[in-house]
Every structure is written in structure tokens, then in C-alpha cells.
């Protein structure tokens, strides 16, 4: 069947690539004039032919093929001045662009660019974060953070107070594919999630796609967050940094050889533990994280370029010398870009990704270490082909080797007290194609197909369970291939442009996921385990349909969208009631499987230009699970189910020096399990539960404000101060609610609420020279 489909694809492909005569191609790269950074997603429009435009790909490359003639090309990018060039097209041409960043503070007048990308782009449920805008918004501890700003968008919910974890359209936090320079980041948070692993100084671009992603992405059900690091200024050296109350950052970048190669290195460290040192009780404890982003690139010649980038981050937590916990991610990417000719672009990536945690107890004879690790080697090859103005093709393949070492207990003194679990190997493959096709000036279609496979590899024994009872086992020799799961994932999006101001989009996508995060708690821990699909655990499958209306007002100053979606999820995994996740020999004996559904409406109104900018977002949604063995097999609200979710964000440029900003969030409390009765057992008051997640946490709301002061620029030296207050009116939002016998009257039972942050003020000083 697969063979037949592939043949069909080839035929389809060939039929669309029959080229007409007398056509020539303009191609090139779009860059920032000052730093030489490629501008991802910048657009080139042809003035003479309306609705003909191409976006630069993730390496700033574009290609447009037009009939012979004279054209006016316009290059645009958000926050940059428009540039136009007239071209007399009688042969293939290479045109590179260097756009100038349109700073409001400078005398350059930013032209009112026609920013109607949201109307014209085909992919829906997608948003690009403006890194400059993020810097102005108030955040907890003053640490600007792309993942926290993301949570202010419709359909994306915070995983908890001050948390960088997020849920997209009813999916779990492990169902987001988080990529840093193409390398998957398994745990994108530091310090219980209060910080994300993304140092915004090192980031150029962050794009989120909520489920309807093109087929080059795969492996997670809910969303793709594609984060790209900056390349580093290839013209001059630059140092930037920030000093905050609990963390500091420093970045250095510059050319290695002028306009040929450059580097960027950026580091961060928190110093919460310095406060601990000041206290008597906690002075022996440590608690900090650090991370380092580094990147270098080299232009071999006009058409070939090599990039090397890496991330290294680690959290450390210790109680004196007795207990030490540390965890972190390592990623590395080597990429080779090649412009084969004016219509063909190739990228080859070799990616390494590693997440591990270690929990150490030092107590002489009772010393032990609990560690777990996930390690990937990943090879990607992608071709992009721009045959004409109507089609933009991508096709490629991806092969990944995963090695997962589940939580093993290792005794330092006595090997027989250890519980070493075998590592598991698996092999994931995908081939795909995707085409963005402009069928008519009004209709564009983005369609693609991804064939993914997951093979269980040998070297260990896999048990098969029926309702937690072992029924069989499969012993696979080293490198033998066990069960292989194949999945065909169609992706389809339509955009119908109604008129210059509005469009309707609809889409369907199937996504599959073969790596599952097992978490028994209501929020994620670094110790949560990843597990691959096995004989018991089947690939998770999500099907999502969505429909949206997009409208711009007042010469594209305002942008409005309304999107609805319905999503079903198969083969969802959860722990059974009373699961032993610490010492069970095989965690698969403790699992249950079921399905899920999620649906919602997302409204978004954004003011994009002017002294006052900001947005308003509202989400109405529901997400439920049905798992045999939980809640008597009845549907129940998933923990991330929140009916209403509102975010209001405003940034006001008061004067060239001062800007003010604020954001307000409100959401219905998450679904939670509270007792409906109580009894006494083993001499203790114990609670009686009638229903899974049948209650709600109290509603959550909060207002944060911040003010940024940018000092007058002195030569190359720029600096700014950011003052912010998180939770201005001191709302005591419930972080947890627990139940206990009243201390004052033991015949009564009371509910106790813990809230984490009331009024967190912070000051950050940023500089650049």
C-alpha cells in the first residue's frame, strides 16, 4: 500500500513541476543590515503581480520564478523598513537584501508596511514571537522568557504559577515538540519550571504551530515550537548582558572572518543560593542553574554554509553533602546549507540531544544514585524546491536513534542492592513532502504527507501485560528489530482570501507521538520518565480539524482572528491508581491506556503598530480523557482543562526613553480531584473520592506591570533598566490545596491553600556595546 502511495506522490510531484518556457528565477538571501543575521520569514512581494510573494525560509533564502519582464520587488519584515528594487528580468539573478531595522528612536521613518501576513499565509494556528516585544513585557523575577510570553496567546495555557511549561489545545506538556536549532529539548525548564531553558539573548526566532503543522514537523501531538538561535554578528563585535536580582546573563558575538564567519556565545546563571548562604538554616544548601548557548557559522562560498550550534544547561540542587540532585539538557546541531541552484535549496542536519537527571544520596554504606537518561542521534535531510511562483516544495527524511535509560537505582557500596533497568533502544524514521500551492490569487493550499515509523530495537526483554498482569515477554537480541509501527500522517490547510482584509482558513492534520512522558503528579518534575512506544504502549495519534476567520482592520493596524478546533487523541497513557513508580521492576506494569478529545474557540485581537500596541486573547475550551480503570471508565476533565482563559497585554511607548507595559491574565481553575467525604483508617482521617478531576481550583487572575527606561545611546553603548512587579495586586492564587485535621479543633477537617507569589518586584539592568 505504501509503495502505491509513494508512486502516486511522485506522479503528483512530476505533474506539478512541468516548467513553462521563458521564465527566470530571482533568488537570494534576506539579512539584517547591521548584524548580517538572516531574517526568517521575511517576504518578497512582486508589485506588478498582486498576491505573488515568497517568504524567506528558516535560513533567510528565497526564490521566485517569473516570466521575462521588468518588476518591482519589495522586501518586508516586521520591525524593519521596507526596501524596493527594480529588476529587469531576462536571466536568472541572485539578489541579496540587507534590511534596516526600523528603530522608533532613530530618525529613520518606518514605512507603513503592508503587514497582512496573517491573512495571506496558509498555515493556521501559528504565531511568531517578536523577541524585541518580549523584552518589554513584565515577567516573574524580571527574566524575559519566550515560553511565558507564549502562554499569553490564545489556545496556549500555562502549566502553573510562574511556570514555563505549557499546554496547547488540550494536550499535555509532553505533547509539544520543542526544538532548539532543530534539536528536541526534552525538558525545557529550570528550577521547577520557573525559568525556561531559552535564554532570550541567544534567540533569533520562535514560532509556534498549534497542531496543523506542515509535514516537515512530526513526533508530538499538540504543537511545534521551533526556536532558532542567533548566528552572531558577522560585521562587528558586540557584547550584551543583563544583571537581575536572581540571575545574570552575558553574550558575546562577532565575526571570525569579516562577513564570512561569525560566532555567538551566551551564558546565564542564577544565584538564588547566595540568598541561602545568608541564612543560618539553609547555608549548606545549593540551588542554581546555568546554561550556555553557543553557535558558529562559516560561509564556504556563496552557496554553501556550515553552522554548528550547541546548548548546555544544568540545574543543581543540594542539601549539604547528603543529597544532590542535578538535571539538564545538552543539544548539538551541525548543519550544512547548500543552494544547489536558484530553485533548489538543501539542508543537512546532524543533531544530538540528551536529557538526564541524577539523584544522589551520600550516606556511607547507604549511598545510592538514581539516574535516568534519554539520548538521541538524529539525521535530517531536506530539499526545498521553488519551481514557480505557485509552488514551494519541501521533501525530506529524518532518521533518529533513541536510547532511553529508565530510572535506575545504583548502590555505591553494594551492587546487589542496585536495581539497574536495561536501556531501551528504538529507531524512528520519517519521510515527508509538503507543498505550499497558490491555486488562484484567492486560494492557497498547504498539503503534505508524512510517513513515520517507530521500531523497537533489541538488547533487552519487553514484557507484555494485560491489565497489569504479565502474559508474555519478548526477548530481542542486540540490534534485532522488534515490532515496527507505521503511521501515515496527512496534513492539509486551505486559505481562501475573501478580500484584502479577510480570509477563511481550514485545516486537518494527523500527528503521532512515540515518546511518552509518564508523570503521576499534577505538574511536571524533572524526574518524570520518558518511555518509547513498546509492545504495550502504542503510538499516540491525534487528529485535528480547525476552522478560522481572519480579519485585519484600519490598514492592518489591527489584526483579528477567530479559530475553532476539534481534536481526538488515541492511545493516551496514564498511571493506574496506586501505581508504584519508584521501585516497580517494569513501569509498563503500572500503566493504563485510553483516549482523549479536546475542542475550543480562540479569539485574538492585536494592535500591531503605533505608540500603543498589545493584544487581547480569549480561549473557550474543553479537554477530556477516557481511560479504562480511571473514574470507572467514564469521561473526565483532563487536569489542564480550563473553561475560560483571558490574556490582555499592552505596551505603551510613553516617550523615547520610557515604555510601560502590563499584562492581565484570568483563567478558570484547573480540574482537580477533591474529596467528597472522609473516614478513618489506620488511625488517620482519610478522604473519600467520588470522581476524577470533578472539582475546580479557584479562579486564577493576576496583573503584572513593568516600566523600561532606555538611556540615551552613547556611541556604541546602549543600556536600559527594567522595573517590574509580578502580581501587582497581590492576588493569592492557589498553587495547591491540601486537606488536614484542624490543628485547633481536631474534630474538624480543613482545606489549606498555599500560594506562591504575591508581589514579586524585580529590577534588571541590560547593556549592549
Amino acid at each position, binding site marked *: 500500500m505504501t509503495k502505491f502511495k509513494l508512486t502516486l506522490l511522485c506522479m503528483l510531484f512530476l505533474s506539478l513541476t512541468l516548467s513553462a518556457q521563458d521564465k527566470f528565477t530571482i533568488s537570494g538571501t534576506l539579512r539584517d543590515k547591521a548584524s548580517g543575521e538572516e531574517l526568517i520569514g521575511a517576504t518578497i512581494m512582486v508589485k506588478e503581480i498582486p498576491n505573488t510573494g515568497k517568504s524567506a525560509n528558516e535560513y533567510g533564502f528565497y526564490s521566485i520564478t517569473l516570466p521575462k519582464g521588468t518588476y518591482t520587488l519589495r522586501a518586508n519584515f516586521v520591525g524593519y523598513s521596507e526596501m524596493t528594487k527594480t529588476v529587469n528580468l531576462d536571466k536568472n539573478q541572485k539578489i541579496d537584501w540587507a534590511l534596516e531595522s526600523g528603530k522608533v528612536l532613530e530618525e529613520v521613518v518606518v514605512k507603513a508596511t503592508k503587514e497582512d501576513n496573517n491573512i495571506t499565509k496558509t498555515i493556521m494556528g501559528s504565531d511568531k514571537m517578536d523577541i524585541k516585544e518580549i523584552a518589554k513585557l513584565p515577567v516573574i523575577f524580571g527574566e524575559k522568557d519566550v515560553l511565558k510570553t507564549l502562554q499569553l496567546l490564545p489556545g496556549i495555557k500555562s502549566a502553573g504559577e510562574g511556570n514555563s511549561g505549557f499546554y496547547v489545545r488540550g494536550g499535555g506538556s509532553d505533547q509539544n515538540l520543542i526544538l532548539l536549532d532543530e534539536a528536541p529539548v526534552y525538558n525545557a525548564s529550570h528550577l521547577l519550571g520557573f525559568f525556561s531553558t531559552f535564554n532570550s539573548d541567544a534567540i533569533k526566532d520562535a514560532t509556534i504551530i498549534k497542531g496543523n503543522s506542515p509535514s516537515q514537523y512530526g513526533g508530538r501531538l499538540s504543537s511545534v515550537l521551533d526556536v532558532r538561535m542567533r548566528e552572531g554578528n558577522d560585521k562587528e563585535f558586540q557584547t550584551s548582558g543583563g544583571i537581575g536580582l536572581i540571575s545574570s546573563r552575558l553574550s558575546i558575538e562577532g565575526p571570525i572572518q569579516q562577513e564570512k564567519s561569525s560566532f555567538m556565545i551566551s551564558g546565564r546563571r542564577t544565584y538564588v543560593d547566595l540568598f541561602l548562604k545568608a541564612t543560618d538554616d539553609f547555608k549548606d544548601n545549593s540551588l542554581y542553574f546555568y546554561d550556555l548557548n553557543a553557535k558558529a557559522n562559516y560561509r564556504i562560498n556563496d552557496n554553501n554554509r556550515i553552522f554548528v550550534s550547541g546548548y548546555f544547561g544544568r540545574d543543581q540542587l543540594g542539601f549539604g553533602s547528603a543529597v544532590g540532585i542535578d538535571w539538564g539538557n545538552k543539544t548539538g546541531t551541525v548543519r550544512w546549507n547548500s543552494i544547489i541552484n536558484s530553485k533548489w535549496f538543501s539542508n543537512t542536519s546532524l543533531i544530538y540531544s540528551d536529557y538526564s537527571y541524577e539523584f544522589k544520596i551520600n550516606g556511607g554504606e547507604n549511598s545510592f544514585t538514581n539516574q535516568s537518561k534519554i539520548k538521541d542521534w538524529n539525521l535530517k535531510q531536506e530539499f526545498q524546491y521553488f519551481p514557480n511562483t505557485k509552488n514551494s516544495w519541501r521533501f525530506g527524511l529524518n532518521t533518529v536513534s533513541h536510547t532511553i535509560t529508565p530510572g535506575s537505582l545504583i548502590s555505591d557500596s553494594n551492587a546487589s542492592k542496585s536495581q539497574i533497568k536495561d536501556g531501551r533502544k528504538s529507531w524512528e524514521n520519517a519521510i515527508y513532502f509538503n507543498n505550499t500551492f497558490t491555486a488562484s490569487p484567492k486560494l492557497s493550499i498547504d498539503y503534505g504527507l508524512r510517513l513515520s515509523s517507530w521500531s523497537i530495537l533489541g538488547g533487552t526483554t519487553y514484557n507484555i501485560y494485560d491489565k497489569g498482569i504479565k502474559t508474555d515477554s519478548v526477548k530481542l537480541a542486540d540490534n534485532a528489530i522488534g515490532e515496527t509501527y507505521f503511521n501515515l500522517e496527512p496534513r492539509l490547510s486551505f486559505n481562501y482570501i475573501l478580500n484584502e482584509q479577510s480570509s477563511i482558513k481550514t485545516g486537518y492534520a494527523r500527528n503521532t507521538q512515540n515518546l511518552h512522558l509518564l508523570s503521576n503528579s499534577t505538574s511536571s518534575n524533572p524526574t518524570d520518565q520518558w518511555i518509547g512506544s513498546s509492545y504495550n504502549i502504542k503510538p499516540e495519534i491525534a487528529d485535528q480539524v480547525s476552522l478560522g476567520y481572519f480579519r485585519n482592520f484600519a490598514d492592518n493596524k489591527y489584526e483579528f482572528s477567530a479559530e475553532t478546533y476539534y481534536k481526538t487523541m488515541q492511545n493516551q497513557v496514564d498511571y493506574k491508581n496506586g501505581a508504584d513508580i519508584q521501585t516497580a521492576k517494569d513501569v509498563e506494569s503500572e500503566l493504563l491506556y485510553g483516549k482523549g478529545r479536546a475542542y475550543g474557540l480562540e479569539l485574538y485581537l492585536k494592535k500591531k503598530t503605533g505608540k500603543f500596541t498589545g493584544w487581547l486573547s480569549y480561549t473557550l475550551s474543553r479537554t477530556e480523557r477516557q481511560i479504562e480503570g480511571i473514574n470507572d471508565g467514564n469521561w473526565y476533565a483532563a487536569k489542564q482543562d480550563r473553561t475560560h482563559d483571558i490574556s490582555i497585554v499592552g505596551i505603551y511607548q510613553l516617550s523615547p526613553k520610557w515604555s510601560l507595559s502590563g499584562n492581565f491574565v484570568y483563567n478558570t481553575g484547573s480540574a482537580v480531584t477533591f474529596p467528597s467525604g472522609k473516614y478513618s483508617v*489506620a488511625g488517620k482521617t482519610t478522604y473519600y473520592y467520588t470522581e476524577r478531576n470533578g472539582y475546580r481550583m479557584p479562579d486564577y487572575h493576576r496583573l503584572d506591570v513593568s516600566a523600561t527606561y532606555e538611556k540615551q545611546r552613547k556611541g556604541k553603548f546602549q543600556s536600559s533598566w527594567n522595573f517590574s512587579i509580578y502580581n501587582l495586586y497581590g492576588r493569592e492564587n492557589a498553587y495547591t490545596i491540601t486537606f488536614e485535621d484542624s490543628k485547633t479543633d481536631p474534630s474538624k477537617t480543613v482545606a489549606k491553600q498555599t500560594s506562591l507569589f504575591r508581589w514579586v518586584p524585580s529590577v534588571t539592568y541590560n547593556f549592549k556595546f
Partner: protein
Amino acid sequence: MNFKKIMLSILLPLWGLGGLSCTKEIELDLNSSNSKYVIEAELPQNQVAIVTITKTVNFSDSNNFPPIKAADVIITDNLGVTEKLTETASGVYKTQKIKGEEGKTYSLSIKTEGQTFTAKSTMPTAVKMTGLRAAVSIVRVPGSKADTYNIFPQFIDPPALGNNYRFIQTRNNETDKSLILGNDNIGNGEPNARPIFSRDFDIKLGDNVTVEMRCLDKPAYDYFFSLNSINANGPGGGTTPTNPVTNLSGGALGYFSAYTVQKLSTTVK
């Protein structure tokens, strides 16, 4: 050990100092529920069986759990010896003849108000506890000045997998209310190397400590294990709470456990 708990036990006081975090009592509107039967049935080694039957109450009620009187409670062993239990106090039923013996399997049957509940429990063979050893705790509680101690029960786990233990620790005649459980998933067939870890129950130099060791069958262990995971529902959410996994059929809460009993005492020096 709960990771999040450790982390928050560092972070919360720190934020507490800064006035950021706070804990307070709140009013919650919790549903009322249909009352359920709660059965706590224990058959200790060489002792008579004690079965307590009560009912659940609503959360807002006071902690008076109504006893179930005049129930028909019968225990039968695997040799066919059977006995109807006598109600010695309201809702409390005891055997007169049957006393728990190692290796025997017991069946419990309860009939009350038109409902029937049954359960089975096997008393495992006792694993000999040979002594108690006290050692200075490796984890110092933040803020404490003096050393605290942990007790290591001395015993050798038998070679066969599947031994389950429960320990009850007493300090100068004050009983530790926490549920302390162990099994041989780790260290099977080895001399015990795990101390009794208990929060909020510090043992200091000079204390007189008694440890009762119980060997349980797997269903009873699973009950206590799952009961413990709900009770451990601390800051950060913990496990999604559910009713513990019971070995009673018929829709009652609680458990039936026949277990071995050994007690040893020591003075920490």
C-alpha cells in the same frame, strides 16, 4: 522520596522570608456523597482478629464516623475453621478462638443492612527481625541543631521475591502515625539496608525506640502503598488522589490484612 517536596522545602521558606508565599485556611464548597462502608479488618499473628466497621461522612461534618452495629462478621481459615465475630464495642468485632497463624489464608465475610462484603488475606511466613540499629541521619532537617537518628531494622530478606513489610515505630511510648512500608523490589534476598524514614518524627540521643515489624501479603501492601501516595499529596500537587486499592469486594473502603508481628526495643546511644 518526593522530588518536588524537597525542592519546595527549600524554596517555600525562602519565599516565605520575602513574604511571597503564604498558606491559609480556605472555605471550599465540597459535594456531599452517599455514605460508604469502611472496613478495617486485621488479624495479627497469635492474636484475635479485630474488625471495625464504620461509614464515611461528608467533608464538612465533624470527625465522628458512625459505627455499624449488629453486622454479621465471619472469618474462616483455609482448613475450614470458621467463627462468627462478637461485637465487643459498637462497630468493633473480635474473634474469641481464631488467632492469626503464619502461612494460613483467611476469608472474611461481612453481612450488614442487606449488603455483603468479602475479602481474603494470607499471613506470610515471618521474616526474622534480629535487632535494631540506630545511626545518625544523613539528611539534616533544615534548621535543626542537634543530630537526628534513623533506625535500621535488622533482618535478612528471603531469596524469593515478593516480601512486603510494614513498620510501626514508637519513641518513648509515642507512636509515629506515618505509614512506613517496604518491599524487596530493591535488595531482594539481602540484609536490610534501608532505615525507617519518617518526616516530623525526630529520634534523638537517649530516646527509647520500639519497632514493630509486620509481614504482609501483596494486596494488603498495595492498599497501604496507595493510601500512602494519597496522604503524601503535598505541595506541588503530588499524585492525583484516588481511593486506595482495596482487597475487599462489594464496594467497601478499607482492607483485610493478616500479618505477622515482631517487636524489638532499643535505646539510642
